[in-house]
């Protein structure tokens, strides 16, 4: 068995460097010193970024190993790309944290971010229900703490509590579903579950289990009708925490459920032949998310809530991608969710940079951003237009790939893809509602005249905007990995 432990240890080097990094961040900040808060924030973020870079490097060193530890973990291309994406989105989040936030306990914030990213990385590689559950809970518990981290604001604590209560209930749903799957198949390993299900076929109890698991999935993806937490959390949480919840958490969640639904439960997908299966449930979730997200976003007046409802709409499109992944492979979905993550982190980064100098709650607060800070206005334009899906930005390519694969996948998803394309026109309206004050309207008289941007935040935002443009012009940079 010793050999297997060595293999596990070497395969989990990225996660190890993250955990060691988190502990070091805490240890360095522990002694009472006279360092200013800003300096402590920079030290913590710098060490966190170093740990993430070390994780990225060791990820490349580990490479594509296949099944590890008797199939508990699988390090295939999907896991490799998703873990790399999670680390990259984590780096962007830390860049925003360093340049914009003034939290009282920066080291703890960075350490919890690193723990959350460890959870995401394990989620992306888990091939067994127990590890999937533990990774999901490690990530979720860290995110609840991050959402409620700003102790000076009542909104932050409230966002954390709401996120926690919804998340706790959905975790219980998922655990109950896992227990039923274990009971029906006698195993918690996904390949063995798939084998047993192929022998026994669908049963009523299995349908109950599928629905329970999909409730947990819907919560993680912020799909309607399990989206209720999203607007409040996006609004109340500190900006870097909201960015992480909206980006890396989605990427890891979709990777985990992609693995759970297709290789694990693919035999009971249903769909085409009129059999009941999980595809029907996912189609309804996608439909509800697309309609609710796009139409409710129209009525919002707060920047972060617009982003939250747009996230719900994007979750609907991503669920289409999950269904289509059974036919078209995982590349379109992964491309979509990664570029969506970069754009969302960027948008939250701009909000955070503005918030440092003036309130940035309502859409009207963005007025005159063009004159106050051309850099922020330009970056915001790139991110928001990418979310809207305007070529040549990455958001357009992502939508194109997912919708075209959904059109090929089958009748039901084809109609849904057409609806999603129509709703993109609706979405353009509320995205332009964000850009109109930022780019066109004059500044309100009683606000800051200039918004200086911290160099670290500026570099992060420009890098993210460049990434969006680059991936939009050369999608094969990312698609070629699959």
């Amino acid at each position: 068995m010793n050999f297997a432990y060595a293999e596990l240890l070497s395969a989990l080097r990225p996660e190890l460097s993250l955990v060691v990094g988190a502990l070091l961040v805490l240890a360095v900040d522990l002694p009472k010193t006279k360092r200013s808060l800003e300096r402590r924030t920079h030290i913590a973020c710098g060490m966190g970024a170093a740990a993430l870079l070390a994780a990225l490097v060791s990820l490349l060193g580990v490479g594509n190993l296949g099944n590890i530890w008797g199939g508990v973990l699988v390090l295939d291309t999907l896991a490799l790309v998703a873990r790399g994406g999670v680390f990259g989105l984590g780096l962007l989040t830390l860049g925003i944290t360093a340049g914009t936030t003034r939290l009282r306990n920066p080291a703890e914030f960075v350490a919890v971010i690193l723990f959350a990213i460890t959870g995401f990385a394990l989620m992306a590689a888990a091939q067994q229900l127990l590890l999937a559950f533990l990774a999901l809970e490690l990530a979720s518990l860290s995110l609840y703490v991050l959402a409620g981290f700003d102790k000076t604001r009542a909104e932050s604590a409230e966002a954390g509590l709401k996120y926690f209560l919804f998340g706790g209930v959905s975790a219980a749903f998922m655990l109950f579903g896992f227990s039923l799957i274990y009971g029906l198949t006698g195993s918690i390993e996904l390949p063995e579950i798939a084998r047993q299900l192929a022998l026994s076929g669908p049963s009523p109890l299995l349908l109950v289990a599928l629905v329970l698991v999909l409730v947990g999935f819907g919560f993680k993806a912020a799909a309607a009708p399990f989206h209720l937490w999203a607007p409040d959390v996006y609004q109340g949480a500190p900006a870097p925490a909201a960015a992480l919840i909206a980006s890396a958490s989605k990427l890891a969640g979709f990777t985990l459920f992609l693995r759970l639904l297709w290789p694990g439960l693919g035999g009971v997908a249903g769909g085409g032949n009129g059999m009941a299966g999980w595809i029907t449930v996912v189609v309804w979730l996608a439909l509800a998310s697309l309609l609710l997200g796009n139409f409710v976003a129209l009525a919002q007046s707060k920047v972060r809530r617009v982003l939250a409802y747009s996230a719900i709409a994007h979750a609907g499109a991503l669920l289409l991608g999950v269904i289509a992944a059974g036919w078209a492979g995982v590349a379109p979905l992964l491309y979509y969710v990664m570029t969506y993550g970069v754009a969302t982190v960027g948008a939250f980064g701009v909000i955070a940079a503005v918030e440092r100098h003036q309130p940035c709650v309502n859409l009207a607060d963005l007025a005159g951003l063009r004159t106050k800070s051309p850099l922020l206005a330009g970056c915001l334009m790139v991110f928001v237009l990418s979310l809207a899906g305007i070529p040549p930005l990455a958001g357009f390519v992502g939508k194109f790939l997912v919708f075209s694969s959904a059109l090929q996948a089958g009748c039901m998803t084809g109609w849904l893809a057409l609806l999603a394309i129509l709703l993109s026109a609706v979405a353009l309206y509320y995205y332009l509602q964000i850009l109109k004050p930022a780019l066109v309207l004059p500044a309100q008289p009683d606000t800051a005249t200039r918004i200086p941007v911290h160099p670290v935040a500026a570099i992060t935002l420009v890098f993210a905007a460049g990434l969006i443009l680059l991936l939009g012009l050369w999608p094969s940079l990312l698609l070629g990995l699959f």
Partner: protein
Amino acid sequence: MSPLQLCLLLSSLLFCVGLVAAMARSNAILVLLGVELMLNAANINFIAFWRYGPNPEAGTGVLFVLFSIAVAAAEAAVGLALVIAVYRHQKTIRLASINRLKG
């Protein structure tokens, strides 16, 4: 009725009681209790399926339950911390009156 069916009946009942508590209660701590009941209902399932399943010597179900109890404890710790954080600001833990965030 076989013992397995009785166990599943019990766990389903417990799950529903927990869900009703989580949905209907207004006190944040009672909602937390409801969530714990739901998690424990799943634990009963795991134990029952392990005990009456085809190969009880593998011990998968019991292991799963041990981990999930630990996770539930961690979840309770985080949850209570958040409840305290909310109480410090708003002096209440009634969910109906914790509504600063809205559209």
